[in-house]
């Protein structure tokens, strides 16, 4: 689906339209309010806005959904970030005695950015992405989603496309929101396998025994490796890329490995050449202890998710909000349905220009909608609300909001129990 030519210069005109008629405020508030189980949860949440001309304002907070809507319409933010829930209303933090204003809770978040993979992707670099390297994100989501659910027991994960070159994960479980800095850092490090900067050549080192987490992650990587690395990225096809791979192979089998890669150029498929090289080298190595996982280390170095630990560590860290617009690409940061993860195409995500344009299209010939029109004449406010709901449903944004609704339904089950408990306690008195 082609996106309308997006021009950043149109943002000042598109944003008001987006916020007035498309941004899903009801769902957004439903999320951040978390059922109202904890007092002032929404009111004490910090938001930050980036306004026109890169003016950045922090410590924004709102008492109600209506106030949030009003302010956003007034300020017209180009970017919206969500921060922590504080001990007091963030917009009053200056009135609080120094030292007592503290970040208390926040979702556990992860940020995977494509630029962190620049040393292992050949198709793009920096801010560019394409369908070939997007597989890296697919792999990352599969691996992290599994680990956060199966290993850590989290259930309410919201994966969001960042709008340009990566994905974010918001872990919304109550236990996750209450995690300390040390705990967040520990989770992030558990999930990290690729270590080292430009000065480190071999970034993944595995030792026996292989932890079940590594085994599970490898299973995912192995599924994608032949197609992604050997075919699309062609890591064995050009000399510079082959050299990079060879730099990760232990010295004692390097020669054999090299020969296997270069021979059979015409006859074998790339996947077979790789397999052959690996098997022969491992046989040679059968008795050696060191470097026996080299092929796994190579696959992981090329494919395993690279997280920025600092993003996940801080309770007060601000992260781009779902449904925020990315000013450079115009794309909306949409939630991702994991059932359709393998077919997710970041370049097909609707831009703000597209959905605003879709709003202007004449109403689809649908008799059903007309009769609804007639029925809902009474309450002005309700009608405006319903109009807005119908509005986004007419655009490409619809399916993403629907998915967000499903996510929220699941989340709501968890706080229903809490609310019952609370009301029971109150009745006892």
């Amino acid at each position, binding site marked *: 689906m082609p996106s309308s030519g997006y021009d950043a210069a149109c943002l000042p005109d598109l944003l008001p339209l987006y916020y007035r008629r498309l941004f899903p405020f009801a769902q957004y508030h439903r999320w951040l309010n978390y059922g109202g189980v904890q007092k002032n949860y929404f009111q004490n949440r910090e938001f930050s806005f980036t306004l026109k001309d890169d003016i950045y304002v922090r410590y924004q907070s709102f008492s109600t959904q209506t106030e949030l809507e009003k302010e956003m319409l007034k300020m017209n933010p180009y970017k919206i970030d969500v921060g922590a829930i504080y001990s007091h209303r963030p917009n009053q933090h200056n009135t609080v005695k120094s030292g007592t204003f503290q970040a208390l809770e926040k979702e556990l978040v992860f940020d995977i950015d494509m630029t962190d993979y620049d040393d292992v992707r050949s198709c793009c670099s920096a801010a560019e992405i394409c369908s070939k390297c997007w597989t890296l994100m697919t792999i990352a989501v599969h691996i992290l989603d599994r680990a956060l659910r199966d*290993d850590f027991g989290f259930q309410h994960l919201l994966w969001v496309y960042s709008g340009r070159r990566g994905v974010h994960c918001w872990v919304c479980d109550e236990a996750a929101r209450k995690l300390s800095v040390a705990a967040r850092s520990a989770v992030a490090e558990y999930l990290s396998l*690729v270590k080292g900067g430009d000065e*480190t050549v071999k970034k993944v080192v595995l030792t026996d*025994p*292989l932890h079940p987490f590594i085994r599970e992650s490898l299973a995912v990587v192995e599924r994608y490796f032949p197609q992604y690395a050997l075919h699309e990225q062609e890591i064995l096809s050009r000399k510079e890329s082959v050299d990079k791979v060879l730099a990760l192979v232990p010295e004692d089998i390097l020669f054999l490995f090299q020969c296997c890669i270069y021979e059979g150029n015409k006859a074998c498929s790339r996947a077979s050449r790789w397999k052959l090289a690996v098997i022969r080298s491992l046989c040679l190595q059968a008795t050696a202890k060191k470097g026996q996982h080299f092929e796994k280390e190579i696959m992981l170095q090329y494919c395993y998710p690279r997280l920025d630990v600092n993003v996940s560590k801080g309770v007060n860290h601000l992260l781009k909000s779902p449904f925020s617009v990315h000013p450079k690409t115009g794309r909306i940061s949409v939630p991702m349905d994991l059932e359709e993860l393998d077919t997710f195409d970041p370049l097909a995500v609707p831009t703000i220009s597209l959905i605003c344009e879709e709003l202007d299209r004449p109403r689809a010939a649908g008799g059903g909608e007309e009769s609804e029109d007639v029925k809902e004449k009474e309450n002005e406010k309700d009608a405006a609300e319903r109009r807005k709901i119908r509005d986004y449903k007419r655009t490409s944004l619809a399916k993403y909001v629907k998915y967000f609704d499903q996510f929220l339904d699941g989340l709501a089950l968890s706080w229903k129990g809490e609310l019952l408990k609370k009301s029971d306690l109150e009745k006892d008195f």
Partner: protein
Amino acid sequence: MQFSGRRRKVITSPQVELYGQALQFYGQPPLENMSLSEFESFAVDRLKLLKTIENLGVSYVKLSDDYKRKLDNESRNLNFPYRPDAVPDDRKSQVGPSEYEKRRKDHISHFILRLAYCQTEDLRRWFIQQEVDLFRYRFNGLQPKQKVEFLHKNNLQYDTISVEEKKTLQDKLVNSSHNVSGITVEDQDFYKVPFQDALDLVRTRKVYLKAGYVYIPHQDIVAIVLNDFRTRLSKALALTARSLPAVHSDERLQPLLNHLSHAYVGQDYSIQKNVGKISLEQIDSLSVKSFPLCMRQLHQALRDSHHLRHGGRMQYGLFLKGIGLSLEQALQFWRSEFIRGKVDADKFDKAYAYGIRHMFGKEGKRADYTPYSCMKVILSNLPSQGDHHGCPFRHSDPELLKQKLQFYKVSPSGISQILELVKGMHYQLACQKYFELTHSIEEASFSLNHPNQYFIESQRVLGGGKDIKREVGTPQRSQENSAARGSTADREAAAAANAAKDLPEMTEDLDSFFQDA
């Protein structure tokens, strides 16, 4: 705590109860009276012990034989408990203080240092780290039976898993940890512990994790205990900080507590003595002659790509502040370099200038950040793809490090000496060796623990000793100025000049002890 001038006799029976266990969580503060001199000597001794622990932790693998032996010695010399199986009122078999007296000293000194180290995030972090290491070493020395006793006495009740569940999970349990074999699974109880209570094991992936619980064999329960200790101590320090004003109102205590907390850091290079003495043109040549390898690398990366990521900007930017760059110079320096890259002047002013002013304490909470010490560079904020910060001796591939040293014209024999030290994890010694080789001196007269220290020492060697005079001439700032953390001029002047008369003799010893470290 009440303090009297004279030592009062201590009641034995309830105290024997109190010190019945070799190891404790320090849940209850001491409730006795003691003399001021004992107060001071206890505190100073414990600080020496913690300092030793810090140094040993960098030079040796924790709990290795060398580490334990050295720590045993130090504990013995300072009259702290070191043999967990000694009985409290056994006074006959030992010369010197009894086990009971050692445990009492341990208990009291811990609480005194809490007062000194609760005030800032940095102090707390340091204190907690050393106390956790001390605890680990002591818990490790307990017999298995004593460990179980300890767990029960301290309310660490965790559930064990059934035999069936153990069988089902056997392979996964064995593969999750070096220590766990098939036999371990069969013989030992496995505890199911919420992952938040076992962070150290989770962080290093040394344990099996399922649905938010870690499965720990009885033998490994120490990690849990440590986590618990750390959490309790952290909370306690936060509480202590709130009652500090009351403590500080006691004039006898305030000077000592301030001096104790300044002493740990050693020089922090936060007070710039040479502001404006370095010109921007000098930096390229200085980076070759007088910068430690980590900063030389960062400077080179900056010149090459006209950019540095956040970690690199912090580490290098603060270092430059420490060597004497003013805020204006820093802004000019970074701006001119970034402009050569992809950043235009406007973007620099919007996005990066703020960060630099922040470093100099002109933005946000106006904290004047101190340049990173070697410990901080080595241990925190690991570099990842695209980063150039960190310690090259620690974070670079040995091959790449070797090439770099060759490129910098270090002799082959020098390089192999350095690589040997790196292999033994003696990163600071490796850097010191690099210093010796690049300055053509036999042996460095200092013990390297800070990049800015490297710079100052280098300038000293190259300039023939001119710097020394400037430092000693700085007037002494006494303990009235307790808000300032610029202990540099403080300590040196105190040691060199005759200001020591104002401080009790004890603290003068403290100074010289830490200068030698």
